[in-house]
Protein backbone atom coordinates (compact mmCIF):
# COMPACT_ATOMS: atom_id res chain seq x y z
CA UNK A 1 0.00 0.00 0.00
CA UNK A 2 1.21 3.43 -0.85
CA UNK A 3 0.01 4.85 2.37
CA UNK A 4 2.77 3.50 4.56
CA UNK A 5 5.39 5.40 2.67
CA UNK A 6 3.95 8.64 3.83
CA UNK A 7 3.15 7.80 7.39
CA UNK A 8 6.34 7.54 9.36
CA UNK A 9 4.83 8.64 12.67
CA UNK A 10 3.63 5.81 14.75
CA UNK A 11 1.15 7.62 16.94
CA UNK A 12 -1.06 7.85 13.92
CA UNK A 13 -1.87 4.23 13.60
CA UNK A 14 -5.27 4.78 15.00
CA UNK A 15 -5.98 6.57 11.80
CA UNK A 16 -4.74 3.66 9.73
CA UNK A 17 -6.75 1.18 11.68
CA UNK A 18 -9.86 3.14 11.20
CA UNK A 19 -9.48 3.82 7.55
CA UNK A 20 -8.92 0.15 6.75
CA UNK A 21 -11.80 -1.10 8.72
CA UNK A 22 -14.29 -2.96 6.67
CA UNK A 23 -17.70 -4.00 7.73
CA UNK A 24 -19.72 -6.70 6.15
CA UNK A 25 -22.39 -7.31 8.64
CA UNK A 26 -25.61 -8.94 7.57
CA UNK A 27 -24.98 -8.87 3.88
CA UNK A 28 -24.71 -5.15 3.40
CA UNK A 29 -22.21 -3.92 0.95
CA UNK A 30 -19.00 -2.41 2.09
CA UNK A 31 -18.95 0.73 0.08
CA UNK A 32 -17.59 2.88 2.86
CA UNK A 33 -14.73 0.55 3.25
CA UNK A 34 -13.98 0.43 -0.43
CA UNK A 35 -13.92 4.15 -0.77
CA UNK A 36 -11.65 4.60 2.17
CA UNK A 37 -9.24 1.92 1.09
CA UNK A 38 -7.25 4.32 -0.99
CA UNK A 39 -5.01 6.98 0.36
CA UNK A 40 -6.85 9.88 1.86
CA UNK A 41 -9.91 7.71 1.75
CA UNK A 42 -11.98 9.57 4.25
CA UNK A 43 -11.35 12.83 2.46
CA UNK A 44 -12.40 11.29 -0.84
CA UNK A 45 -15.50 9.95 0.61
CA UNK A 46 -16.47 13.26 2.08
CA UNK A 47 -15.63 15.10 -1.06
CA UNK A 48 -18.01 13.00 -3.10
CA UNK A 49 -20.66 12.35 -0.53
CA UNK A 50 -24.01 13.46 -1.81
CA UNK A 51 -22.55 14.22 -5.22
CA UNK A 52 -24.52 12.56 -7.98
CA UNK A 53 -22.78 10.09 -10.23
CA UNK A 54 -23.50 12.30 -13.20
CA UNK A 55 -21.53 15.09 -11.52
CA UNK A 56 -18.70 12.79 -10.53
CA UNK A 57 -18.54 11.69 -14.14
CA UNK A 58 -18.40 15.32 -15.19
CA UNK A 59 -15.49 15.90 -12.81
CA UNK A 60 -13.81 12.90 -14.35
CA UNK A 61 -14.23 14.15 -17.89
CA UNK A 62 -12.77 17.48 -16.83
CA UNK A 63 -9.61 15.73 -15.72
CA UNK A 64 -10.22 15.49 -11.99
CA UNK A 65 -8.04 12.63 -10.67
CA UNK A 66 -9.86 12.07 -7.36
CA UNK A 67 -13.02 11.55 -9.38
CA UNK A 68 -11.32 8.81 -11.34
CA UNK A 69 -9.99 7.21 -8.16
CA UNK A 70 -13.44 7.32 -6.68
CA UNK A 71 -15.00 5.64 -9.69
CA UNK A 72 -12.29 3.02 -9.86
CA UNK A 73 -12.46 2.26 -6.16
CA UNK A 74 -16.20 2.05 -6.10
CA UNK A 75 -16.60 -0.15 -9.14
CA UNK A 76 -13.48 -2.29 -9.38
CA UNK A 77 -14.85 -5.32 -7.53
CA UNK A 78 -18.14 -5.06 -9.29
CA UNK A 79 -16.53 -4.84 -12.71
CA UNK A 80 -14.28 -7.79 -11.97
CA UNK A 81 -17.25 -9.86 -10.88
CA UNK A 82 -19.15 -8.80 -13.95
CA UNK A 83 -16.23 -9.61 -16.25
CA UNK A 84 -15.79 -13.14 -15.01
CA UNK A 85 -19.31 -13.91 -16.17
CA UNK A 86 -17.92 -13.87 -19.70
CA UNK A 87 -14.83 -15.91 -19.09
CA UNK A 88 -13.15 -17.88 -16.35
CA UNK A 89 -9.83 -16.30 -17.24
CA UNK A 90 -9.40 -13.68 -14.52
CA UNK A 91 -6.26 -12.17 -16.03
CA UNK A 92 -8.24 -11.43 -19.19
CA UNK A 93 -10.81 -9.54 -17.16
CA UNK A 94 -8.08 -7.60 -15.36
CA UNK A 95 -6.58 -6.64 -18.71
CA UNK A 96 -9.98 -5.60 -19.97
CA UNK A 97 -10.56 -3.33 -16.98
CA UNK A 98 -7.12 -1.82 -17.46
CA UNK A 99 -7.59 -1.15 -21.20
CA UNK A 100 -11.11 0.10 -20.69
CA UNK A 101 -10.10 2.70 -18.10
CA UNK A 102 -7.06 3.74 -20.10
CA UNK A 103 -9.39 4.30 -23.03
CA UNK A 104 -11.79 6.35 -20.96
CA UNK A 105 -8.95 8.40 -19.47
CA UNK A 106 -7.33 9.14 -22.81
CA UNK A 107 -10.48 10.38 -24.41
CA UNK A 108 -12.05 11.80 -21.28
CA UNK A 109 -12.36 15.28 -22.79
CA UNK A 110 -14.60 13.95 -25.56
CA UNK A 111 -16.81 11.82 -23.35
CA UNK A 112 -20.48 12.66 -23.24
CA UNK A 113 -22.52 13.12 -20.07
CA UNK A 114 -24.07 10.00 -18.60
CA UNK A 115 -27.23 9.00 -20.34
CA UNK A 116 -28.50 6.06 -18.34
CA UNK A 117 -26.25 5.46 -15.35
CA UNK A 118 -22.58 5.25 -14.54
CA UNK A 119 -22.89 1.59 -13.73
CA UNK A 120 -24.51 0.77 -17.05
CA UNK A 121 -21.87 2.80 -18.83
CA UNK A 122 -19.02 0.96 -17.14
CA UNK A 123 -20.64 -2.44 -17.66
CA UNK A 124 -21.19 -1.69 -21.31
CA UNK A 125 -17.60 -0.54 -21.76
CA UNK A 126 -16.24 -3.64 -20.10
CA UNK A 127 -18.46 -5.93 -22.12
CA UNK A 128 -17.32 -4.21 -25.32
CA UNK A 129 -13.71 -4.51 -24.28
CA UNK A 130 -13.98 -8.23 -23.58
CA UNK A 131 -15.90 -8.92 -26.78
CA UNK A 132 -13.30 -6.88 -28.63
CA UNK A 133 -10.59 -9.28 -27.46
CA UNK A 134 -12.78 -12.12 -28.64
CA UNK A 135 -13.39 -10.58 -32.03
CA UNK A 136 -9.74 -10.15 -32.77
CA UNK A 137 -9.00 -13.74 -31.87
CA UNK A 138 -10.32 -15.44 -34.94
CA UNK A 139 -11.55 -18.54 -33.15
CA UNK A 140 -14.06 -16.81 -30.92
CA UNK A 141 -16.56 -14.46 -32.44
CA UNK A 142 -19.13 -12.29 -30.85
CA UNK A 143 -21.97 -14.40 -32.17
CA UNK A 144 -20.35 -17.30 -30.49
CA UNK A 145 -20.68 -15.61 -27.14
CA UNK A 146 -24.42 -15.90 -27.54
CA UNK A 147 -24.06 -19.66 -27.57
CA UNK A 148 -21.30 -19.81 -25.02
CA UNK A 149 -22.29 -22.22 -22.28
CA UNK A 150 -19.66 -20.92 -19.93
CA UNK A 151 -20.86 -17.32 -20.13
CA UNK A 152 -23.15 -16.22 -17.31
CA UNK A 153 -23.05 -19.73 -15.97
CA UNK A 154 -25.48 -20.40 -13.17
CA UNK A 155 -24.19 -22.42 -10.28
CA UNK A 156 -26.63 -24.16 -8.04
CA UNK A 157 -25.21 -24.40 -4.59
CA UNK A 158 -25.97 -27.59 -2.79
CA UNK A 159 -24.25 -26.38 0.29
CA UNK A 160 -27.53 -26.03 2.06
CA UNK A 161 -28.89 -28.59 4.37
CA UNK A 162 -29.47 -31.47 1.97
CA UNK A 163 -25.80 -31.76 1.12
CA UNK A 164 -25.47 -34.96 3.07
CA UNK A 165 -28.37 -36.73 1.53
CA UNK A 166 -27.79 -39.83 -0.47
CA UNK A 167 -28.79 -39.09 -4.03
CA UNK A 168 -27.08 -35.73 -4.05
CA UNK A 169 -24.63 -36.47 -6.85
CA UNK A 170 -27.24 -37.71 -9.26
CA UNK A 171 -29.59 -34.82 -8.56
CA UNK A 172 -26.84 -32.32 -8.97
CA UNK A 173 -25.97 -33.64 -12.42
CA UNK A 174 -29.60 -33.54 -13.47
CA UNK A 175 -29.95 -30.00 -12.23
CA UNK A 176 -26.79 -28.82 -13.93
CA UNK A 177 -27.91 -30.33 -17.19
CA UNK A 178 -31.33 -28.78 -16.89
CA UNK A 179 -30.09 -25.31 -16.11
CA UNK A 180 -28.02 -25.36 -19.32
CA UNK A 181 -31.26 -25.28 -21.27
CA UNK A 182 -31.46 -21.55 -20.60
CA UNK A 183 -29.87 -19.53 -23.36
CA UNK A 184 -26.93 -17.24 -22.71
CA UNK A 185 -29.07 -14.19 -23.19
CA UNK A 186 -31.62 -15.50 -20.74
CA UNK A 187 -28.90 -16.15 -18.17
CA UNK A 188 -27.48 -12.72 -18.85
CA UNK A 189 -30.72 -10.87 -18.25
CA UNK A 190 -31.35 -12.88 -15.08
CA UNK A 191 -27.90 -11.89 -13.87
CA UNK A 192 -28.62 -8.18 -14.25
CA UNK A 193 -32.00 -8.52 -12.63
CA UNK A 194 -31.10 -10.83 -9.73
CA UNK A 195 -27.59 -9.73 -9.02
CA UNK A 196 -26.99 -6.21 -10.23
CA UNK A 197 -30.28 -4.61 -9.37
CA UNK A 198 -30.30 -2.88 -12.74
CA UNK A 199 -33.36 -1.15 -14.10
CA UNK A 200 -34.96 -2.04 -17.42
CA UNK A 201 -33.41 1.01 -19.02
CA UNK A 202 -29.96 0.05 -17.85
CA UNK A 203 -30.43 -3.50 -19.09
CA UNK A 204 -31.70 -2.21 -22.39
CA UNK A 205 -28.57 -0.10 -22.70
CA UNK A 206 -26.15 -2.90 -21.89
CA UNK A 207 -27.83 -5.60 -23.94
CA UNK A 208 -28.58 -3.26 -26.84
CA UNK A 209 -32.26 -4.09 -26.87
CA UNK A 210 -34.74 -2.08 -28.82
CA UNK A 211 -36.88 -0.76 -26.00
CA UNK A 212 -37.86 -1.30 -22.40
CA UNK A 213 -40.70 -3.55 -23.42
CA UNK A 214 -38.38 -6.03 -25.04
CA UNK A 215 -36.32 -6.10 -21.83
CA UNK A 216 -39.44 -6.96 -19.89
CA UNK A 217 -40.42 -9.65 -22.35
CA UNK A 218 -36.99 -11.20 -22.30
CA UNK A 219 -36.90 -11.12 -18.50
CA UNK A 220 -40.31 -12.71 -18.01
CA UNK A 221 -39.68 -15.37 -20.60
CA UNK A 222 -36.42 -16.18 -18.83
CA UNK A 223 -38.13 -16.33 -15.45
CA UNK A 224 -40.79 -18.68 -16.82
CA UNK A 225 -38.15 -20.90 -18.40
CA UNK A 226 -36.20 -20.99 -15.16
CA UNK A 227 -39.27 -21.96 -13.21
CA UNK A 228 -40.25 -24.72 -15.61
CA UNK A 229 -36.78 -26.18 -15.60
CA UNK A 230 -36.46 -26.23 -11.85
CA UNK A 231 -39.92 -27.59 -11.20
CA UNK A 232 -39.34 -30.56 -13.44
CA UNK A 233 -36.73 -31.72 -10.99
CA UNK A 234 -37.96 -33.95 -8.20
CA UNK A 235 -35.51 -32.75 -5.57
CA UNK A 236 -36.46 -29.17 -6.07
CA UNK A 237 -40.08 -29.98 -6.01
CA UNK A 238 -39.79 -31.93 -2.79
CA UNK A 239 -38.18 -29.04 -1.00
CA UNK A 240 -40.45 -26.40 -2.38
CA UNK A 241 -43.60 -28.29 -1.53
CA UNK A 242 -43.05 -27.50 2.12
CA UNK A 243 -44.04 -23.89 1.67
Amino acid at each position, binding site marked *: MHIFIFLPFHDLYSLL*FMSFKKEHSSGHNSENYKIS*RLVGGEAFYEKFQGVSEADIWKHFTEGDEPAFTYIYTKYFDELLNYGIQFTQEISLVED*AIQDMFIDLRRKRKQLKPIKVSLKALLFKSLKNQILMYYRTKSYIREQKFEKDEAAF*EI*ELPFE*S*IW*IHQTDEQEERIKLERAIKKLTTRQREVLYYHF*YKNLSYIEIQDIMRLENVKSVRNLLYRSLAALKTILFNLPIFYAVVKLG
Partner: protein
Amino acid sequence: MKKKKFTIEDFLGDKNFVEWVKNPSKEHDFFWMKWMENHPEHRPTLLKARHILSNIKYRELHHSEERFNRVFDKILMDTRSARYPYQELYKKDDRMVWFRVAAAISFLAIFSFFLLSGYHEKPESEETSQITFFEFNNPRGKRSSFRLPDSTYVVLNAESSLIIPSDFLENRKVELFGEAYFEVEKRFGSNFTVVSGELNTLVLGTKFNIQSYPEDSLISIALVEGLVDVKNGSDTSKSKISLEPNQKLRYKRKTREYRKSDFKASDEIAWKDGMLVFNHSGLDEVKSKIERWYDVQVKIIGRPEENWQLTGCFDNQNIINLAESISFAKGIKCQLKDNELILKFN
Protein backbone atom coordinates in the same frame (compact mmCIF):
# COMPACT_ATOMS: atom_id res chain seq x y z
CA MET B 1 -53.49 -4.29 -2.72
CA LYS B 2 -55.84 -5.60 -5.37
CA LYS B 3 -57.00 -9.17 -5.35
CA LYS B 4 -54.84 -10.73 -7.91
CA LYS B 5 -53.38 -14.06 -8.71
CA PHE B 6 -49.65 -13.94 -8.19
CA THR B 7 -47.36 -16.24 -10.07
CA ILE B 8 -43.81 -17.17 -9.20
CA GLU B 9 -42.60 -14.96 -12.03
CA ASP B 10 -44.40 -11.99 -10.53
CA PHE B 11 -42.36 -12.34 -7.38
CA LEU B 12 -39.12 -13.07 -9.17
CA GLY B 13 -39.66 -10.08 -11.42
CA ASP B 14 -40.23 -7.73 -8.51
CA LYS B 15 -37.19 -5.66 -7.57
CA ASN B 16 -38.21 -5.36 -3.96
CA PHE B 17 -38.61 -9.07 -3.63
CA VAL B 18 -35.24 -9.81 -5.21
CA GLU B 19 -33.61 -7.26 -2.95
CA TRP B 20 -35.13 -8.91 0.10
CA VAL B 21 -33.88 -12.37 -0.77
CA LYS B 22 -30.44 -11.26 -1.92
CA ASN B 23 -29.70 -8.58 0.67
CA PRO B 24 -31.95 -9.23 3.59
CA SER B 25 -32.48 -6.39 6.02
CA LYS B 26 -34.78 -5.78 8.95
CA GLU B 27 -37.00 -3.41 6.99
CA HIS B 28 -37.42 -5.84 4.11
CA ASP B 29 -38.07 -8.71 6.49
CA PHE B 30 -40.71 -6.68 8.20
CA PHE B 31 -42.40 -5.69 4.97
CA TRP B 32 -42.56 -9.21 3.55
CA MET B 33 -43.51 -10.86 6.82
CA LYS B 34 -46.42 -8.48 7.07
CA TRP B 35 -47.26 -9.06 3.44
CA MET B 36 -47.40 -12.81 3.99
CA GLU B 37 -49.61 -12.33 7.01
CA ASN B 38 -52.02 -10.23 4.98
CA HIS B 39 -51.98 -12.54 1.98
CA PRO B 40 -51.80 -16.06 3.40
CA GLU B 41 -53.14 -17.45 0.13
CA HIS B 42 -50.01 -16.27 -1.71
CA ARG B 43 -47.58 -17.55 0.87
CA PRO B 44 -46.79 -20.87 -0.87
CA THR B 45 -46.06 -19.14 -4.17
CA LEU B 46 -43.89 -16.58 -2.46
CA LEU B 47 -41.90 -19.25 -0.64
CA LYS B 48 -41.36 -21.16 -3.85
CA ALA B 49 -40.10 -18.05 -5.58
CA ARG B 50 -37.78 -17.38 -2.70
CA HIS B 51 -36.47 -20.87 -2.76
CA ILE B 52 -35.63 -20.63 -6.45
CA LEU B 53 -33.93 -17.31 -6.05
CA SER B 54 -31.87 -18.19 -3.02
CA ASN B 55 -30.51 -21.25 -4.79
CA ILE B 56 -29.25 -19.50 -7.85
CA LYS B 57 -25.70 -18.27 -7.99
CA TYR B 58 -23.39 -16.88 -10.55
CA ARG B 59 -19.60 -16.99 -10.50
CA GLU B 60 -18.22 -14.82 -7.78
CA LEU B 61 -14.83 -13.47 -6.81
CA HIS B 62 -13.97 -12.12 -3.43
CA HIS B 63 -12.14 -8.89 -3.07
CA SER B 64 -8.41 -8.97 -3.68
CA GLU B 65 -6.31 -6.02 -2.63
CA GLU B 66 -3.47 -7.21 -4.80
CA ARG B 67 -5.52 -7.26 -7.98
CA PHE B 68 -7.07 -3.93 -7.16
CA ASN B 69 -3.68 -2.26 -6.72
CA ARG B 70 -2.04 -3.96 -9.69
CA VAL B 71 -4.66 -2.82 -12.17
CA PHE B 72 -4.79 0.66 -10.64
CA ASP B 73 -1.04 1.13 -11.02
CA LYS B 74 -1.14 -0.02 -14.63
CA ILE B 75 -3.92 2.43 -15.43
CA LEU B 76 -1.97 5.30 -13.88
CA MET B 77 1.10 4.30 -15.86
CA ASP B 78 -1.06 4.52 -18.96
CA THR B 79 0.23 1.30 -20.50
CA ARG B 80 -2.05 -0.98 -22.47
CA SER B 81 -2.28 -4.64 -21.62
CA ALA B 82 -0.56 -7.18 -23.85
CA ARG B 83 -3.98 -8.31 -25.02
CA TYR B 84 -4.84 -4.95 -26.53
CA PRO B 85 -5.21 -5.83 -30.21
CA TYR B 86 -4.40 -2.54 -31.87
CA GLN B 87 -1.21 -0.63 -32.39
CA GLU B 88 -0.78 2.35 -30.16
CA LEU B 89 -1.66 5.38 -32.23
CA TYR B 90 0.81 7.73 -30.71
CA LYS B 91 4.14 7.33 -29.07
CA LYS B 92 4.07 8.15 -25.46
CA ASP B 93 6.16 11.02 -24.31
CA ASP B 94 8.20 9.54 -21.49
CA ARG B 95 8.46 12.79 -19.62
CA MET B 96 4.72 12.97 -19.66
CA VAL B 97 4.45 9.59 -17.95
CA TRP B 98 6.83 10.64 -15.24
CA PHE B 99 4.96 13.83 -14.83
CA ARG B 100 1.79 11.86 -14.27
CA VAL B 101 3.46 9.54 -11.79
CA ALA B 102 4.91 12.50 -9.95
CA ALA B 103 1.55 14.15 -9.91
CA ALA B 104 -0.07 11.03 -8.52
CA ILE B 105 2.56 10.69 -5.82
CA SER B 106 2.38 14.29 -4.72
CA PHE B 107 -1.35 13.98 -4.68
CA LEU B 108 -1.10 11.03 -2.31
CA ALA B 109 1.40 12.89 -0.19
CA ILE B 110 -0.77 15.95 0.12
CA PHE B 111 -3.76 13.90 1.11
CA SER B 112 -1.82 11.94 3.69
CA PHE B 113 -0.42 15.13 5.11
CA PHE B 114 -3.83 16.62 5.24
CA LEU B 115 -5.09 13.63 7.15
CA LEU B 116 -2.10 13.51 9.44
CA SER B 117 -2.33 17.06 10.55
CA GLY B 118 -5.84 16.52 11.83
CA TYR B 119 -4.83 13.63 13.99
CA HIS B 120 -1.49 14.88 15.11
CA GLU B 121 -2.45 16.04 18.53
CA LYS B 122 0.11 14.57 20.85
CA PRO B 123 3.30 16.58 21.35
CA GLU B 124 6.19 14.79 19.72
CA SER B 125 8.72 15.53 22.42
CA GLU B 126 7.36 12.98 24.87
CA GLU B 127 10.30 10.67 25.44
CA THR B 128 8.57 7.98 27.41
CA SER B 129 5.46 7.94 25.35
CA GLN B 130 2.53 6.20 26.92
CA ILE B 131 1.26 3.11 25.24
CA THR B 132 -2.36 3.42 24.37
CA PHE B 133 -4.64 0.72 23.06
CA PHE B 134 -7.02 0.55 20.17
CA GLU B 135 -9.90 -1.79 20.22
CA PHE B 136 -11.83 -3.35 17.39
CA ASN B 137 -15.13 -4.46 18.72
CA ASN B 138 -17.97 -6.34 17.06
CA PRO B 139 -21.34 -6.80 18.72
CA ARG B 140 -23.46 -9.85 18.01
CA GLY B 141 -24.56 -10.23 14.43
CA LYS B 142 -21.65 -8.30 12.97
CA ARG B 143 -18.39 -9.43 11.45
CA SER B 144 -15.63 -7.22 10.11
CA SER B 145 -12.27 -7.43 8.44
CA PHE B 146 -9.35 -5.02 8.35
CA ARG B 147 -5.61 -4.75 8.03
CA LEU B 148 -3.20 -3.87 10.79
CA PRO B 149 -0.31 -1.45 10.11
CA ASP B 150 2.06 -4.35 9.32
CA SER B 151 -0.56 -5.40 6.76
CA THR B 152 -1.66 -8.42 8.74
CA TYR B 153 -5.15 -9.29 7.60
CA VAL B 154 -7.74 -9.94 10.29
CA VAL B 155 -11.32 -11.13 10.08
CA LEU B 156 -13.08 -10.57 13.38
CA ASN B 157 -16.15 -12.64 14.18
CA ALA B 158 -19.32 -11.51 15.91
CA GLU B 159 -19.24 -10.66 19.60
CA SER B 160 -15.46 -10.44 19.53
CA SER B 161 -12.86 -7.81 20.14
CA LEU B 162 -9.21 -7.36 19.29
CA ILE B 163 -6.92 -5.02 21.19
CA ILE B 164 -3.84 -3.49 19.64
CA PRO B 165 -1.18 -1.42 21.40
CA SER B 166 0.05 1.84 19.94
CA ASP B 167 3.62 0.55 19.76
CA PHE B 168 2.38 -2.32 17.66
CA LEU B 169 5.04 -2.07 14.98
CA GLU B 170 7.85 -2.58 17.51
CA ASN B 171 5.99 -5.13 19.50
CA ARG B 172 3.47 -7.09 17.53
CA LYS B 173 1.34 -8.38 20.35
CA VAL B 174 -2.44 -8.29 20.25
CA GLU B 175 -5.14 -9.55 22.57
CA LEU B 176 -8.22 -11.39 21.44
CA PHE B 177 -11.56 -12.00 23.06
CA GLY B 178 -13.79 -14.15 20.90
CA GLU B 179 -12.90 -15.45 17.49
CA ALA B 180 -10.67 -14.13 14.72
CA TYR B 181 -8.87 -15.34 11.66
CA PHE B 182 -5.36 -13.98 10.99
CA GLU B 183 -3.14 -13.83 7.96
CA VAL B 184 0.12 -12.58 9.42
CA GLU B 185 2.73 -10.94 7.24
CA LYS B 186 6.23 -12.23 7.72
CA ARG B 187 8.70 -9.72 9.08
CA PHE B 188 12.32 -10.52 9.55
CA GLY B 189 13.18 -11.13 13.18
CA SER B 190 9.83 -10.09 14.53
CA ASN B 191 7.27 -12.34 16.13
CA PHE B 192 3.56 -11.80 16.14
CA THR B 193 1.78 -12.83 19.31
CA VAL B 194 -1.89 -13.31 19.97
CA VAL B 195 -2.93 -13.44 23.60
CA SER B 196 -6.19 -15.29 24.16
CA GLY B 197 -7.04 -16.09 27.75
CA GLU B 198 -4.02 -17.73 29.26
CA LEU B 199 -2.69 -18.95 25.92
CA ASN B 200 -0.14 -17.05 23.88
CA THR B 201 0.20 -17.96 20.22
CA LEU B 202 3.56 -17.06 18.69
CA VAL B 203 3.87 -16.86 14.95
CA LEU B 204 6.20 -15.68 12.23
CA GLY B 205 4.06 -15.53 9.14
CA THR B 206 1.01 -17.74 8.90
CA LYS B 207 -2.70 -18.13 8.50
CA PHE B 208 -4.64 -19.32 11.48
CA ASN B 209 -7.87 -19.08 13.41
CA ILE B 210 -8.36 -18.61 17.14
CA GLN B 211 -11.61 -19.15 18.95
CA SER B 212 -11.62 -18.03 22.56
CA TYR B 213 -14.91 -16.71 23.83
CA PRO B 214 -14.55 -15.91 27.53
CA GLU B 215 -17.78 -17.74 28.35
CA ASP B 216 -16.77 -20.90 26.46
CA SER B 217 -14.89 -23.64 28.26
CA LEU B 218 -12.61 -24.25 25.29
CA ILE B 219 -9.95 -22.27 23.48
CA SER B 220 -9.32 -23.55 20.00
CA ILE B 221 -6.40 -22.63 17.76
CA ALA B 222 -6.40 -23.92 14.19
CA LEU B 223 -3.47 -23.51 11.84
CA VAL B 224 -4.04 -23.24 8.09
CA GLU B 225 -0.56 -22.42 6.86
CA GLY B 226 2.95 -21.97 8.31
CA LEU B 227 3.93 -22.72 11.87
CA VAL B 228 2.87 -21.47 15.29
CA ASP B 229 4.00 -22.07 18.85
CA VAL B 230 1.49 -21.98 21.67
CA LYS B 231 2.57 -21.15 25.20
CA ASN B 232 0.66 -20.98 28.40
CA GLY B 233 1.09 -17.47 29.75
CA SER B 234 0.58 -18.48 33.36
CA ASP B 235 3.10 -21.26 33.01
CA THR B 236 6.60 -19.96 33.82
CA SER B 237 8.44 -22.90 32.28
CA LYS B 238 9.49 -22.60 28.68
CA SER B 239 7.35 -25.44 27.47
CA LYS B 240 5.44 -24.83 24.30
CA ILE B 241 3.40 -26.72 21.77
CA SER B 242 4.02 -26.43 18.05
CA LEU B 243 1.25 -26.78 15.53
CA GLU B 244 1.60 -27.84 11.94
CA PRO B 245 -0.74 -26.92 9.10
CA ASN B 246 -4.18 -28.49 9.40
CA GLN B 247 -3.65 -29.18 13.06
CA LYS B 248 -5.85 -27.78 15.73
CA LEU B 249 -5.23 -27.34 19.41
CA ARG B 250 -8.09 -27.53 21.86
CA TYR B 251 -7.44 -26.31 25.36
CA LYS B 252 -9.79 -26.81 28.27
CA ARG B 253 -9.69 -23.80 30.54
CA LYS B 254 -10.77 -25.67 33.64
CA THR B 255 -8.56 -28.71 33.54
CA ARG B 256 -5.79 -27.08 31.51
CA GLU B 257 -5.73 -30.07 29.22
CA TYR B 258 -4.47 -29.86 25.68
CA ARG B 259 -5.50 -31.95 22.77
CA LYS B 260 -4.19 -31.81 19.23
CA SER B 261 -6.29 -33.00 16.32
CA ASP B 262 -6.63 -32.59 12.59
CA PHE B 263 -9.28 -30.36 11.15
CA LYS B 264 -10.86 -29.46 7.86
CA ALA B 265 -10.05 -25.87 6.95
CA SER B 266 -13.35 -25.60 5.11
CA ASP B 267 -15.26 -26.17 8.36
CA GLU B 268 -13.10 -24.26 10.75
CA ILE B 269 -12.62 -20.95 8.95
CA ALA B 270 -15.56 -20.85 6.56
CA TRP B 271 -17.16 -18.27 8.86
CA LYS B 272 -14.77 -15.63 7.59
CA ASP B 273 -16.39 -15.93 4.16
CA GLY B 274 -19.85 -15.60 5.61
CA MET B 275 -20.60 -19.30 5.95
CA LEU B 276 -22.19 -20.64 9.05
CA VAL B 277 -21.08 -24.25 9.44
CA PHE B 278 -22.41 -26.96 11.68
CA ASN B 279 -20.43 -30.14 11.83
CA HIS B 280 -22.15 -32.73 13.98
CA SER B 281 -23.01 -29.88 16.31
CA GLY B 282 -25.00 -30.51 19.45
CA LEU B 283 -27.93 -28.36 20.46
CA ASP B 284 -25.92 -26.07 22.75
CA GLU B 285 -23.43 -25.31 20.02
CA VAL B 286 -26.19 -24.70 17.48
CA LYS B 287 -27.90 -22.32 19.89
CA SER B 288 -24.87 -20.22 20.75
CA LYS B 289 -23.67 -20.09 17.15
CA ILE B 290 -27.02 -18.87 15.85
CA GLU B 291 -27.31 -16.32 18.64
CA ARG B 292 -23.92 -14.81 17.86
CA TRP B 293 -24.32 -14.94 14.13
CA TYR B 294 -27.75 -13.39 13.81
CA ASP B 295 -28.04 -11.48 17.06
CA VAL B 296 -31.17 -13.30 18.13
CA GLN B 297 -32.29 -15.19 21.21
CA VAL B 298 -32.75 -18.90 20.60
CA LYS B 299 -35.42 -20.50 22.69
CA ILE B 300 -35.83 -24.23 22.91
CA ILE B 301 -39.14 -25.84 23.68
CA GLY B 302 -39.39 -29.54 24.35
CA ARG B 303 -36.52 -31.97 24.35
CA PRO B 304 -34.62 -33.30 21.40
CA GLU B 305 -33.74 -36.96 21.23
CA GLU B 306 -30.40 -37.93 22.66
CA ASN B 307 -27.45 -37.47 20.31
CA TRP B 308 -29.34 -34.82 18.38
CA GLN B 309 -26.91 -33.32 15.88
CA LEU B 310 -26.94 -30.84 13.06
CA THR B 311 -24.67 -30.85 10.04
CA GLY B 312 -24.87 -28.32 7.29
CA CYS B 313 -23.40 -25.19 5.83
CA PHE B 314 -25.25 -21.93 5.31
CA ASP B 315 -23.58 -19.71 2.79
CA ASN B 316 -24.57 -16.12 3.51
CA GLN B 317 -28.13 -17.13 4.28
CA ASN B 318 -30.59 -15.01 6.17
CA ILE B 319 -32.17 -16.36 9.29
CA ILE B 320 -35.45 -17.21 7.63
CA ASN B 321 -33.75 -19.53 5.17
CA LEU B 322 -31.75 -21.03 8.00
CA ALA B 323 -34.84 -21.69 10.08
CA GLU B 324 -36.62 -23.22 7.14
CA SER B 325 -33.73 -25.49 6.24
CA ILE B 326 -33.34 -26.71 9.79
CA SER B 327 -37.02 -27.39 10.18
CA PHE B 328 -37.06 -29.25 6.88
CA ALA B 329 -33.97 -31.32 7.59
CA LYS B 330 -34.68 -32.14 11.21
CA GLY B 331 -38.45 -32.26 11.14
CA ILE B 332 -38.88 -29.71 13.91
CA LYS B 333 -40.86 -26.52 14.06
CA CYS B 334 -38.97 -23.24 13.82
CA GLN B 335 -40.64 -19.96 14.45
CA LEU B 336 -39.19 -16.50 14.19
CA LYS B 337 -40.73 -13.82 16.34
CA ASP B 338 -39.17 -10.41 16.77
CA ASN B 339 -35.73 -11.18 18.05
CA GLU B 340 -36.43 -14.72 19.04
CA LEU B 341 -36.00 -17.97 17.19
CA ILE B 342 -38.06 -20.73 18.74
CA LEU B 343 -37.15 -24.36 18.09
CA LYS B 344 -39.94 -26.73 18.99
CA PHE B 345 -39.19 -30.37 19.60
CA ASN B 346 -42.01 -32.79 20.06
